[in-house]
């Protein structure tokens, strides 16, 4: 079965999807698609062109909400899809991170565009702490509809900062089996954060870790490890 292969840069997963083309084909796996085929509902009148998503006003969807259930099912499939193509938890987390990264770049672009069009004095954060604050509140609100719960700074390592979410919405319905207890599906969120940090000019390595408490069993810490160049620049800017 021949698939038009997109440019490698367009899809980070293109290499693997090529190697498992037969697996991706709906015709090859019958069990997953056991539901009787429903005749396609003619929702579009023939001739009327479908509205293009790229022509839509970007501000129009700012306050509209997405069904949490629909997203939960989508994310569940994302995790299942990814899990089939990896060997081990680290690999799985890295891939979820990569997927989140692709969202983060778009989130940042959209937020910058919106702040430029709505605010009279749009601002770009150039210092690290205000940037981190804006991720904690603005990015979280744009993506999850609520700010994160805390920001912490590592005592041991000067280059480590943490964003803490007591109840990450993407993990609300996920129960990780005991043998994979180290896995945090919030690696996806970590990818978003990493992309925003990179985009703002603070290259960092971002990972997600489960830090459950009695009150919040799904509490998650997003750990940001900054590159040395960022710390050096912060030192220079201080003076």
């Amino acid at each position, binding site marked *: 079965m021949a698939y038009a292969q997109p440019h490698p840069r367009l899809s980070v997963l293109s290499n693997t999807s090529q190697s498992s083309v037969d697996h991706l084909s709906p015709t090859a796996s019958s069990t997953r698609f056991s539901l009787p085929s429903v005749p396609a509902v003619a929702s579009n009148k023939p001739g009327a062109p479908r509205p293009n998503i790229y022509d839509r006003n970007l501000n129009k969807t700012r306050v509209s909400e997405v069904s949490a*259930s629909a997203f*939960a*099912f989508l*994310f*569940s*499939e*994302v*995790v*299942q899809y990814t*899990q089939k193509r990896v060997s081990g938890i680290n690999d799985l987390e890295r891939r979820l991170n990569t997927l989140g990264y692709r969202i983060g770049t778009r989130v940042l672009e959209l937020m910058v565009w919106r702040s430029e069009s709505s605010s009279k004095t749009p601002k770009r954060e150039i210092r690290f702490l205000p940037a981190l604050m804006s991720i904690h509140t603005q990015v979280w609100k744009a993506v999850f509809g609520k700010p994160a719960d805390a920001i912490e700074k590592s005592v041991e390592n000067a280059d480590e900062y943490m964003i803490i979410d007591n109840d990450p919405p993407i993990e609300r*319905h*996920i*129960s*990780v*089996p005991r043998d*994979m207890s180290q896995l945090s*599906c919030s690696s996806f969120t970590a990818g978003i954060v990493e992309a925003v940090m990179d985009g703002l000019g603070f290259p960092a390595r971002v990972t997600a870790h489960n830090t459950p408490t009695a009150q919040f069993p799904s509490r998650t810490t997003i750990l940001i490890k900054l590159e040395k160049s960022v710390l050096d620049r912060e030192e220079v800017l201080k003076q």
Partner: protein
Amino acid sequence: MERQPSCLLSAKRSTRRPQDEPTVVWVRNKFGEGEKQRRARSRSGTHSLLNVNSDHLGPATSPPNRWFQPKFNILAMAIFGLWVINKAGGLVYQRNFAGPDSSLSGFVSDFNPPLIDGLAQLTSNEYLVLAGTLHGIHAITSRLSPMGSSSGAQIIEGEAFKITILLTATGTKFVLLTSLTDTSSDSILQKVYEAYSDAVMKNPFHTPEMPIRSEGFDTRITALIGTGQTA
């Protein structure tokens, strides 16, 4: 779910005089739940064991001449167990409530045998067989309707317990084993279904039609049913 304070319950028990006790026989009923039932010996022969209500066979009218009348508050409302049966008839989830190890047994002494001992523990294989049997009964009842298609049995009543079945559009069955007088079965099953679609179907680590091993589902069920004592 409002729970009786235990002191109230124990007070009720202590006012009971020995001569009020009906003759108690511990039996295993024919489905093998091994439910310990109190039964008046003299009239036990006249009772039909099962009243099956299918949706077209009319609502549950008061069963004729029921010799078993729960006397005490404790007995009034109890949830004994919950099963989830997949569309192929396999038991994917099973849990007992109101058992000997629940909080109820705390004030049951040797002189007063427990009114509710819950269901006897069976081996997992026995549960699988029971679930498969129920699946078969349900399939038969769905074809018994004189008025065209039926969704099958909804309530099956025994001497001292009631099986309420919720069939979903996808063929999954939720089965709740309760005491006869329990009125909350339908709403509880609906909430169980909700918990199932949230904590099981949205969990990427669950394989459809396979046994449910989701911590989130367990937590939701515990919050919903607890020790099985309602009212």
